């Protein structure tokens, strides 16, 4: 472990990690890819806001309204800085990453919008990949069904990498948008953005990144990436549920039609027409997740204080350790890259003749080890590998090598039960 990174000190910030489960089991939480735990700093920021400063934002002139507005808009500043957004006005708060992805999908093929880039109809194409989370598949399927456009996708190689060999045939003049996952929530694979982006630029397609699994784990700089849209979610980055983020280039956000209509997203309303607020407010209809933004701001502060590079380094060491340790389990089949290059701390696998649900159940029941089992909202990827489900271990800043040792012991026990 790196010397500046004190995982034991970090663990003390997460109250749930010292919880005892029923039956006296300690909690070993290896499911952060599903949702991360929250440090006291986040929990307290939310409690304190509700107990002493809460008011609705934007609309109120009074002290509480000002304090809440300042906290809410302050969170926007923090998130913008965290991902290197050129402007704070490019940060749209949504309810989760899924809403952010849907918001962009709904911007296409809307007769209200006359911008050519967001036109969508028969003959137009949308490109995704076979390793997407359902939240980056279904919105585009629905868009294709609404508009008559065609959905296409990059295949995945046997070792869990994006197969870019058909890039030029897949991304063509017909492509309006390419939306792909930055880091896979099953394979751990970190996808190469540059070649896809270069091809998209050649043909005039927009590029969206689902960064739900990368922003929490590594320094992501949206300006350096050069894409058009990025989606991520608060609950996976030690922040609260109920808030997600869409980052988009201002010029595109301005060109897009409004999505949800209502209070706060307007400039002026008459019964028969409306004009809309400037971005980002144009996309934030109704009372936003105020307390959740305060929590997300605290989460960003927390991650920044620990250091995204240190977190990444820690996870890399844990991943190397885990990949090594899992090798000793007979018959374990890794689904995803076995090398450390361009991969994060998400490790999915199968065991011969033992269903992942049984693996997960025994790990949890006997050892208090929380892993995720199933298709992890990436059923097509599992179909591609010919398996109905996997067991997934996902690591974060508060995990330790001792927890991985416990996992390995647990897996040995699982094999014994079903031996």
């Amino acid at each position, binding site marked *: 472990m790196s010397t500046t990174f004190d995982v034991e000190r970090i663990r003390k910030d997460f109250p749930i990690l010292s919880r005892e489960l029923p039956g006296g089991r300690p909690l070993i939480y290896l499911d952060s890819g599903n949702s991360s735990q929250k440090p006291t700093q986040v929990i307290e920021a939310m409690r304190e806001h509700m107990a002493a400063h809460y008011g609705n934002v934007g609309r109120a002139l009074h002290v509480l309204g000002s304090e809440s507005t300042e906290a809410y808009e302050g969170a926007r500043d923090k998130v913008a800085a965290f991902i290197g957004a050129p402007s704070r006005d490019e940060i749209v708060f949504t309810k989760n990453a899924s809403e952010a992805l849907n918001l962009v999908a709904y911007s296409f093929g809307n007769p209200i919008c006359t911008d050519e880039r967001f036109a969508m109809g028969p003959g137009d194409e949308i490109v995704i990949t076979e390793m997407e989370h359902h939240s980056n598949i279904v919105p585009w399927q629905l868009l294709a069904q609404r508009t008559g456009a065609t959905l296409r996708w990059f295949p995945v190689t046997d070792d869990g990498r994006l197969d870019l060999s058909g890039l030029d045939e897949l991304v063509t003049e017909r492509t309006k948008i390419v939306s792909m996952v930055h880091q896979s929530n099953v394979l751990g694979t970190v996808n190469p953005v540059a070649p896809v982006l270069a091809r998209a630029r050649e043909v005039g397609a927009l590029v969206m990144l689902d960064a739900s699994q990368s922003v929490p784990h590594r320094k992501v700089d949206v300006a350096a990436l050069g894409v058009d849209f990025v989606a991520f979610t608060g609950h996976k980055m030690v922040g609260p549920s109920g808030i997600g983020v869409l980052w988009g280039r201002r010029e595109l956000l301005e060109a897009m039609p409004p999505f949800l209509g209502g209070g706060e997203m307007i400039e002026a309303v008459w019964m028969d027409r409306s004009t809309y607020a400037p971005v980002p407010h144009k996309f934030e209809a109704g009372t936003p997740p105020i307390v959740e933004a305060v929590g997300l701001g605290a989460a960003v502060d927390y991650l920044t204080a620990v250091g995204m590079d240190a977190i990444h380094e820690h996870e890399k060491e844990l991943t190397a350790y885990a990949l090594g340790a899992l090798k000793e389990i007979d018959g374990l089949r890794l689904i995803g890259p076995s090398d450390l290059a361009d991969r994060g701390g998400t490790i999915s696998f199968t065991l011969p003749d033992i269903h992942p*649900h049984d693996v997960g159940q025994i790990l949890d029941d006997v050892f208090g080890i929380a892993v995720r089992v199933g298709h992890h909202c990436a059923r097509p990827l599992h179909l591609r590998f010919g398996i109905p*489900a996997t067991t997934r271990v996902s690591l974060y800043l508060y995990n330790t090598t001792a927890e991985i040792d416990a996992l390995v012991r647990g897996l040995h026990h699982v094999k014994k039960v079903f031996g």
Partner: protein
Amino acid sequence: MIAESLYQELILEHYKHPQGRGLREPYDAEVHHVNPTCGDEITMRVKLKDGADGGRHVADVSYEGQGCSISQAAASVLYELTVGSRVEDTLQVVDEFTRLMHGRGQVEPDEAVLGDAVAFAGVAKYPARVKCALLAWMAYKDAVVRSS
């Protein structure tokens, strides 16, 4: 350790050595049921016949499936409990089994009705697994209805 109550020896035995597995001819009805949350699947065929007692009897239940030990063992136990029995009696087992599964661990199982299926009592405490245990039984009920 809680797991002991879920993974009874009998369940593991049926999982490792499933009874009556495979799809066979002839059959009156075939159904395919899926548990979307965990992907467990079962294809089940039922063949009924008239019994010597004048009632309808279960001539054969054949199935193929994939899923966790609970769902697979449930199909195997179901095979043993139904084949050769009166249809009405088996439907009573289905009802009692369903009641047990939805009882959140608070329902006292009727062993006389359930026979070996009583080994699944522990599953009722795990809401996420109840559907696994019920998959084969719901498919069976469906297939019987379609056979009539």
